[in-house]
């Protein structure tokens, strides 16, 4: 198996672009069928009145988590965890959250919203995201070795953090997610 670690720098990318397109078409199809290309559904989640987004995300996570850890145990795939730090993950996550609620789409679902014909996504949101990403690129050199490095923990995963076998975390995590989903259904949410 090749060893790949996300160091934040790009290596020449040879993944056939056509696979990216095929996977994207399936992803977009699923997002639209799930209703999560819609502002009303996403904001409904953030207002805690419509739990579609959480149901889609948690069932994707539990399925993918089991699948990927089975394939990892078999030696078929390697993980690609992203690096993080307290300064990156908490502050960036909160800023993202504000944008998530104000815009009512996220970078993936907004692409789906464009395909669904939503013009506030195409004319407003996409332009805003590009401006925001450009602003970050402009400030990056100053941020990189400052706030983004505060409380750095790199690409560590939860099993590595707890120094246990993957499955010691995967099985309880899967159980907890399934419990939350059943609880949501029982509560008619």
């Amino acid at each position, binding site marked *: 198996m090749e060893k*790949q670690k996300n160091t934040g720098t*790009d290596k020449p990318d040879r*993944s*056939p*672009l056509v*696979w*990216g*397109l*095929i*996977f994207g078409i*399936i*992803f*977009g199809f699923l*997002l*639209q*069928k799930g209703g999560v290309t*819609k*502002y009303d559904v996403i*904001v409904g989640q*953030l*207002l805690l009145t419509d739990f579609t987004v959480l149901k889609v995300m948690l069932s994707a996570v539990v*399925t993918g*988590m089991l*699948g*990927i850890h089975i394939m990892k145990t078999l030696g078929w*795939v390697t993980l*690609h*965890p*992203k*690096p993080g730090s307290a300064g*990156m*993950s908490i502050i*960036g996550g*909160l*800023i*993202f959250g504000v*944008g*998530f609620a*104000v*815009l*009512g*789409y996220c*970078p*993936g679902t907004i*692409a*789906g919203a464009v*395909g*669904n014909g939503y*013009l*506030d996504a195409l004319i*407003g*949101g996409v*332009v*805003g*995201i*590009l401006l925001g*990403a450009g602003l*970050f*690129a402009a400030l990056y*050199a100053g941020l990189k070795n400052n706030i983004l490095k505060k409380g750095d923990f790199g690409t560590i995963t939860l099993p590595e953090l707890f120094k246990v076998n993957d499955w010691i975390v995967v099985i309880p995590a899967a159980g907890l997610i399934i419990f939350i989903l059943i609880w949501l259904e029982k509560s008619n949410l």
Partner: protein
Amino acid sequence: MEWMTETHWSPYVVGIGIGILSGFTFLISKKPIGCSTAFARTSGMVEKIFRGKKVTEKLYYQEVKPIIDWEWMLVLGIVIGSLISSLLSGDFHWQWVPLRWASTFGSNALVRILVAILGGVCLGFGARWTGGCTSGHGISGTLQLALSSWISAICFFIGGITTAFLLYHVIG
């Protein structure tokens, strides 16, 4: 094939589908699903049109090159996939202002667009700050049990829920 033309599928069917899709992207492309880096690359490409080659000298664009890559094609694919799904079900329609927004803040398209741009700026800026979005951290990262992704995803919802309540229950 009636299921192809249905407007809505169960969120669990969709979620399980996305989980299986994640497995295939790892297996075939050795990549997790993610979306926000593609916007950063596009931003660099657009800036290059206006400011020329010196854009690529920026530290950020040396690390995240302004080129079309696998993930960029994935985002393009999302647009196409959603278009196919919505055309098949008849759910496709042009819409300037979402219903929920209109019922609280009115149906003025300009106001909605300006707020959407503002929200987009925060979203794009925050996604690059934390290195991922609801797909890259929220789904792909959490399913790999990455610490960075669990913290980011929880903060997405803390920030999002707080802001949504402020918008709809305090301002609106």
